[in-house]
């Protein structure tokens, strides 16, 4: 091999190794931070992971919002019209959170079945329905057997 070729080979090998390592690291971080969405029916059916964060969404059931006095803890129920999940959240709810509104919560399932939310999202518009919630409702309507929403 001429020196020039050797240099090229070394460069190419370095780039390849660097690229592989970087890609591996990126994909690991990516996998670790993925959050899946489950409808209340899927959560009740036990499809949602335990010990890992996920998202759940549905309509806030009328009359279900309860505040624990002298604290910022709120408890409410969300529903996809077939099944319901109780959510507990400590903190300030978004402006557009209200009963009957579609919301999405991030958090973990507790062993007592209550979903402990670390974040509650209700977006931008009074007519707006989060797409996840819309399709969860549609899935629940078309399918009486609980199934993970697609």
């Amino acid at each position: 091999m001429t020196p020039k070729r050797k240099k090229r080979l070394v460069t190419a090998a370095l780039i390849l190794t660097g690229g592989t390592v970087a890609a591996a690291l990126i994909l690991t971080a990516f996998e670790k931070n993925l959050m899946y969405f489950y409808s209340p029916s899927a959560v009740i059916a036990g499809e949602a992971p335990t010990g890992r964060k996920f998202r759940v969404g549905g309509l806030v059931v009328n009359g279900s919002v309860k505040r624990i006095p002298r604290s910022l803890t709120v408890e409410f129920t969300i529903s996809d019209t077939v099944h319901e999940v109780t959510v507990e959240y400590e903190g300030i709810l978004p402006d557009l959170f209200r009963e009957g509104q579609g919301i999405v919560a991030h958090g973990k399932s507790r062993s007592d079945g209550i979903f402990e939310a670390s974040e509650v999202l209700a977006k931008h518009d009074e007519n707006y329905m989060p797409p996840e919630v819309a399709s969860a409702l549609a899935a629940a309507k078309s399918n009486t057997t609980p199934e993970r929403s697609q």
Partner: protein
Amino acid sequence: MIPELGHFMLSLALSVACVQAVVPLIGAIRGHSNWIALATPTARIQFFLLLAAFIILTHAFLTNDFSVAYVAQNSNTALPLAYRLSAVWGAHEGSLLLWVLILSGWTYAVTIFDEGLPPRFSALVISVLGAVSIGFLSFMLFTSNPFNRLIPAVADGGDLNPLLQDPGLIIHPPILYLGYVGSSVAFAFAIAALIQGRITAQAARWIRPWAIATWIFLTLGIALGSWWAYYELGWGGWWFWDPVENASFMPWLLGTALIHSLAVTEKRGAFKNWTVLLALATFALSLLGTFLVRSGVLTSVHAFATDPGRGIFILALLGTVIGGSLILYAWRGPSTFAGGNYEPISREVFLLLNSSLLAVATATVLLGTLYPLALEALGLGKISVGPPYFNVVFSAVMLPLIAILGIGQFSRWKSDSPQRLVQRLAYPFSAAVAATAIMMIMLGGQKVIAAGVGIGFAMWVIATTLFGIRERCHGRRHPWFIIFNLPRAFVGQCIAHIGFACTIIGVVVTSFYSIDEHQRLAPGDSAEIGGYEFLFVGLRTYTGPNYQSTEGNFELRRDGRFITTLKPEKRLYHVRNMPMTEAGIAPGFTRDLYVSLGEPLEGNAWSVRMHFKPFVRWIWLGALLMACGGFIAMFDTRLRSPKAVRTVAIIKASNVDP
């Protein structure tokens, strides 16, 4: 009648754009000078037609013409005048009109400042810009015409989204658009270079100020958006890795790579391939941004309509641009752009490494943004990628980039020796370590290693920049006088790099030292955050032009000393029945104090969110410095037209020191 005139102007502009795209292109390829000569007038006529259309739409907003559907959806008689004006680009159709108007504005500017270019080349550039304009004008005319009538007209309009009723949002979209659309000039330049099969140093010099100008607008636009999110969304965040933010951030990252790679191409004749590819990709990502934001794929404040026809149209446009330019690149690129020789240790290589790292950073953001969308489109489930992914991966790419930035600033073009570099870098390295130690002590509180690393890297950038200036002035007779005579490109570079360091410091300190408290407070209660006392004095209600407000009154004290009063509000906008949070902020150079109202609780109490945000202003201050640096570099004498450069060269030659 007047709105129909606007519609007519748009149709005329489309036909003019067709002429602008086709005739100069054929002329440039075949060498017909009178065909080439059509480029300038068609581009200018198109601009005036679009300007007229824009003025007509503005007029409809000013006169509350609710027979125009777009006005009826986004304005209201009670809306204040300034917001009636900004409502022109407050939603989909109008913002698209602004998009094409800005595109034709950039084209107009190209026709003015093209003296340095061979007429054939500039005709090609203008024709490519015309083709882009055709795409967007037909998109507007066929799927989202702002002049569509609403019959029968309504008595009053649906009002502008209250989130957009804010002074920051009046200028944020136009500035960001100037950046997005500006990347089309570099794109047109790259396509023209591919068609011609070569890039002359002169052409590379010509495109630099355009690429920098684009980058300045993107920088300012993104910073404004971040600042707006901080004070308007009411929960103190300044960056959410929201797909819409990513959409503007990706072209910025690649645009940064582009201006650096372009500098090498212009000065040393190297990396022509890479520069062209970056210019193509920057524009493609700007288009992707438009697609993501405007098509309704993403649901956010930016996505106005979920009309599948629109999404498919933009997707087709995107496919044509990306596919077409890549095919052209594959066909013409490799054979035509060779050149430049440099050693493995040289400034060229450091710049190449960093522009590659910026491309990798872009790719990671792209993955996190598009992967969930792709999965969902394929029906494989709904996932979201959390901010931790972006934070971890992005910092991992940024650290080597920052390290190399410091070394690169000190290295020589063409070839350098490792010994010399190590020797030279010892001083800035020690200075950076010392500065970091001092800053960590001054910040106090709990010491976090990650924060120290972040600040250390920022100090490394500042130290190498300052020592670089010193090296430039060293050995001159009047070193302090020399500073004012340094080339503007160099001065701009230094200011921008220091701005970058400021942003890093802001990001790191805010991320690690912020305090965020949610508390239940009744009037008379107080809370202590970060050594500051927030006293909740009381509430009052008042009526705004189109909303009802509950305003809190907080007194801020430190060690018993009164500092200021904060007035956070909770507003209810009538027309859309939408609540909004207005934060109360006490800004400061080294810290912000932030309070916003949550919800009324039992009794007279409210849930209240309070933040202590150290150095948060540095994030935007840094962006401002980066933009300033770009602005100064843009006016480097070397980048002016050849005539100007020649005169300067003559003057310099006659002033040469013996």
